[in-house]
């Protein structure tokens, strides 16, 4: 049992934090999210130069072959900075997908430029309720039809990895160039300052060589998404901590009735409860990182659902109370607390909501 981080891990975290401290202040971020692109190419290049985009890339493809613990640390730093660039989507989820399912040629073709910052790849998996993306086998490949939703920064991606179900019921993962015929993107900002799109696919042709893996890859996809979920818990930690820090700072300085409002016992106890949520979330983010690549699926799913429930409840409580204790200032766009609130709101709904994971965990009690 060991809760310490290696020197390399600590350096990684410090380096990331230092970079963001210099390059990702509140004003800078505000200008990024207000821009047309909704992300900064300079920042993307900057984190590529730090080696962060290649963190999960295998060594033979020029990467660091690091794991979920390193990812958690980096993500917590990104969370604290409220980074909107698609690190989670490209450098964690898509990178893991290609590393796990891609053949040698696919890995070489995509992972090297991804790690270098020259290619952004995004897994397009979620569908609007009732939507179902189909893959129909044709000579030498497949035709994809359907609709995907909330595909992060799809408008900037050079590669989409689209999940689709074949006639035989097997789920496959298909590499699609967003510029190819039959692909239409409906782009939009997201509530937390990000960008995403619905991806509409009409008779989109994918050659056999651009299919990742063989047969049904549902279980692989679930494992890949769980790596994303563990990373998301790490990010949540950073946002939660920033929300609490901002609230403590605000209530220390804001005065009402002749004293700082942080002196009022009811507010102090509320902040104590916020801290408890943050610390319990920290414990579960650690657990999620350690179990993210666990081979026993039932053990992995149990741990990750439990983590998402604790983190999700914290997102809700800490987010709402941070705004509440900031009073009127809390609901404005001007302070970072409302931006934290919106990111926590989105995290709670991503990779399955608290209710959905609680339900999965509950059902497993009698399994």
């Amino acid at each position: 049992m060991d809760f310490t981080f290696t020197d390399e891990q600590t350096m990684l975290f410090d380096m990331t934090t230092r970079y963001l401290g210099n390059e990702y202040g509140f004003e800078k971020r505000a200008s990024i999210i207000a821009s047309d692109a909704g992300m900064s190419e300079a920042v993307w290049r900057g984190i590529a130069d730090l080696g962060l985009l290649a963190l999960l890339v295998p060594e033979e493809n020029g990467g660091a072959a690091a794991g979920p613990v390193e990812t958690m640390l980096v993500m917590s730093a990104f969370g604290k900075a409220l980074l909107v660039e698609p690190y989670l989507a490209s450098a964690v989820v898509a990178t893991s997908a290609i590393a796990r399912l891609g053949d040698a040629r696919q890995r070489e073709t995509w992972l090297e430029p991804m790690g270098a910052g020259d290619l952004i790849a995004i897994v397009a998996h979620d569908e609007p309720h009732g939507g179902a993306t189909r893959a129909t086998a044709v000579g030498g490949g497949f035709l994809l039809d359907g609709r995907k939703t909330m595909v992060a920064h799809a408008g900037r991606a050079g590669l989409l990895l689209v999940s689709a179900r074949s006639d035989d019921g097997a789920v496959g993962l298909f590499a699609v160039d967003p510029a190819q015929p039959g692909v239409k993107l409906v782009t939009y900002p997201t509530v937390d300052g990000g960008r995403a799109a619905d991806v509409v696919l009409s008779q989109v042709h994918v050659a056999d060589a651009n299919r990742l893996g063989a047969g049904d890859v549902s279980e692989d996809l679930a494992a890949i998404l769980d790596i994303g979920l563990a990373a998301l818990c790490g990010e949540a930690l950073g946002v939660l901590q920033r929300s609490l820090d901002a609230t403590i700072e605000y209530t220390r300085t804001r005065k009402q009735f002749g004293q700082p409002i942080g002196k009022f016992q009811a507010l102090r106890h509320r902040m104590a409860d916020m801290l408890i949520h943050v610390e319990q979330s920290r414990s579960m983010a650690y657990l999620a990182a350690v179990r993210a690549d666990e081979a026993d699926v039932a053990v992995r799913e149990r741990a990750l659902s439990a983590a998402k429930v604790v983190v999700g409840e914290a997102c809700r409580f800490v987010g709402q109370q941070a705004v509440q204790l900031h009073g009127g200032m809390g609901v404005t766009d001007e302070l970072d607390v409302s931006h934290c609130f919106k990111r926590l709101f989105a995290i709670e709904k991503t990779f399955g909501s608290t209710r959905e994971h609680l339900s999965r965990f509950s059902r497993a009690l009698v399994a």
Partner: protein
Amino acid sequence: MDLSFTAEDQAFREEVQAFLRDHLPAGVRHKVLNGMHLERDDYLAWQHALHARGWGGPSWPEKFGGTGWSPVQQYIFDSTCSEAGAPRLVPFGLKMVAPVIMAYGNEAQHKRFLPPILAGEEWWCQGYSEPGAGSDLASLKARAVRDGDHYVVNGQKTWTTLGQYADWIFCLVRTDPEAKPQRGISFLLIDMKTPGVTVRPIITMDGAHEVNEVWLEDVRVPVENLIGEENKGWTYAKFLLGHERTNIAGIGIAKRELARLKRLALTEVREGRPLLEDPLFAVQVARLEIELTALEITNLRVLSAEAENRAPGPEASILKIKGSEIQQGILELMTEAVGLQALPYRREAMGAGYQGDYPVEGHALTPTMQYLNLRKLSIYGGSNEIQRDIISQMILGL
């Protein structure tokens, strides 16, 4: 004891419903029922329709052109209108400054100010809060110095809701800086067109422009726009805050939004079943509906006490706390009902005539913005923490 309305009240309710069917503009109703953004003209259209019917002042006495309705009738009117999708009546003129003018203004002020409020011809806003004076209102700093027939006002007001539409602002200003905090405050009516008045938007986290800062720089206000006596403004301010509390529970709004939540949860499907059949989701809806049922009766109890001239008192704090929690809870659950569709941010979908290429129906796009917007409910009008202080001090005597 009888929880049902009398035959008279029931007839009145039906009269209101009939009026709503005929005179609530369809476009306005559509916006309200779908959580969309209301413009100045939406509010005014409704006020004009009410005024034409003689219902412009539902909470006003007849002698000022109001309806003279009892608290119970006002409640029936308010909740019936809210449930049917009418916009709220903009309170700053009708429910806030007007009662002060009626109670403490002189006859000239009655004549000048009350009729345009009733007719929806002049829009008012509130100049109470300042950056350093929120819950602790008595620490306000805006100064008014007498100069002949005028006061010269300097200061900054904030959280001025819909101030961008306003023709007039009522302000608390300090006229005697030497006096104790609660003395030396006066109540002034200021024309927003006066030189030196500047309105600057505050953008809230839902991206809306609903509140403002109002800067007052050497603003000259005729002394006839002083309400009552100089330095007695705190009395009028407290009187106003008491009036602000009517319909504070928002029962009608909560019923309307709960019905919308249920519609949503019946159309949203998860694993082949309506979401409302998911036991964990259904139980959250049930809890809110049950709490709302209880709060409605609590509200009627308070009204009933009022009707007998027993003062409603700090029970209003209960209505504020539970009412805000229930409304926030309903919207939060709506965002949960729509799942990932809660995350796209399409502010344009909040307006009329949205025909975007994003094919999800309006219903999935508005709950998140309303949820963000409604975080204010537990903060403004005396935060829920202040309300708990009031309960513990006034009711429990602690």
